[in-house]
């Protein structure tokens, strides 16, 4: 074994503990003072390194590192949990809003239909109620503000779209022909009357303009 071979095969080994496999290296040590000195230095270095290792063999991270890490761990997982809750809550809120909007839309549409259906009868009922009041004279004028039509007794209210308003002058007594009760003392008075004619040309309602009161 030469010096180069010894440096590769023997320098890093514990030749004293080895068996026959290191016999060549041991033989070289006996014959080469340079390699023997190098080997001694190598052994001393390993002892020194081991001592150096032992010096810090019990070293551990300070407890504050663990505390900081646990705090970070808690913060992180709490944040993740609350983020999850926020996401779920957001989805629930969005779903609830959607349901609310849909319900409102449906109700609004239904309400619109009902209102449209109720609008005409209410006019007719009001007119009917007024028309069914006492006799035409002062009482009728007091109940009729001159802007609303009163339903003629016996007339069937139709759609407002098909009606026409006609202003005529007639004797108050002629109103009796429309089924209205007339005070006999004023039967000859000429009055202006707005008649609401239906699609069939028949009067459905009447109105006494302010001027004829």
């Amino acid at each position, binding site marked *: 074994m030469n010096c180069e071979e010894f440096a590769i095969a023997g320098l890093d080994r514990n030749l004293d503990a080895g068996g026959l496999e290191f016999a060549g290296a041991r033989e070289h040590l006996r014959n080469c003072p340079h390699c023997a000195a190098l080997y001694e230095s190598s052994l001393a270095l390993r002892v020194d*390194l081991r001592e150096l290792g032992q010096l810090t063999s019990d070293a551990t991270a300070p407890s504050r590192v663990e505390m900081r890490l646990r705090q970070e761990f808690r913060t992180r997982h709490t944040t993740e949990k609350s983020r999850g809750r926020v996401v779920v809550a957001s989805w629930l809120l969005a779903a609830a809003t959607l349901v609310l909007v849909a319900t409102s839309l449906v109700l609004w549409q239904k309400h619109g239909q009902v209102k449209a259906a109720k609008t005409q009868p209410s006019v007719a009922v009001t007119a009917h109620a007024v028309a069914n009041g006492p006799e035409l004279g002062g009482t009728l004028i007091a109940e009729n503000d001159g802007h609303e039509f009163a339903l003629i007794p016996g007339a069937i209210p139709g759609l407002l779209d098909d009606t026409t308003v006609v202003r005529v002058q007639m004797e108050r007594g002629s109103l009796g022909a429309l089924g209205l009760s007339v005070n006999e003392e004023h039967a000859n008075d000429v009055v202006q009357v707005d008649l609401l004619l239906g699609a069939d040309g028949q009067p459905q309602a009447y109105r006494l303009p302010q001027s004829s009161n």
Partner: protein
Amino acid sequence: MHIELQERDDVLLKRSARGDEEAFTQLYRRNQAQIYRFALRMTGHAWAAEEIVQDVFMTLVREPKKYDPTRGPLGAFLYGIARNRVMKHLERLPREFSLEVKNSEGEAMVLDVADERTPAHWAEIRERRERVRSAVLSLPPEFRETVVLCELEEMSYEEAAQALECPIGTVRSRLHRGRALLLAKLEMLREAPKRANAGS
């Protein structure tokens, strides 16, 4: 035993990823010392080692899925992260190293030995130890980490290869080269005072 430990590490890490703080604490306590020692011996600074340990385990908190159990034990994975952090630290402070290993309070750590030998003898031992430490810290990082793991941490070649993610042959050759460099440096350090005395 080794496989059981790995499986347990796996289980603990899964629990930890689900928010189990106790599992995380167990993992930390099981692995922190070796990472701390490695960082301390590589950097020579307790504060740097502390930062590195914190970084390593912070990665475990933030990205537990980075660890792939099929690629090796958790310890090797942690060593890998620690090595990266150490290298970054050494890049920042390429020339700075301490002759003394200091504890977290900044006090020098001394070997507590009850012995009847003389103070002069202990002064000599202390001086020699400081020379060795300074020589280790002045090694290039790739040789330093091999020396730290195999000589100071007393890992087997196989364990060191796993931690360093390199073949066993590479560990052997780096260690051989590292020792040769250390011997040369120590020889230089030993000769320097003699030259200084001769000069005066």
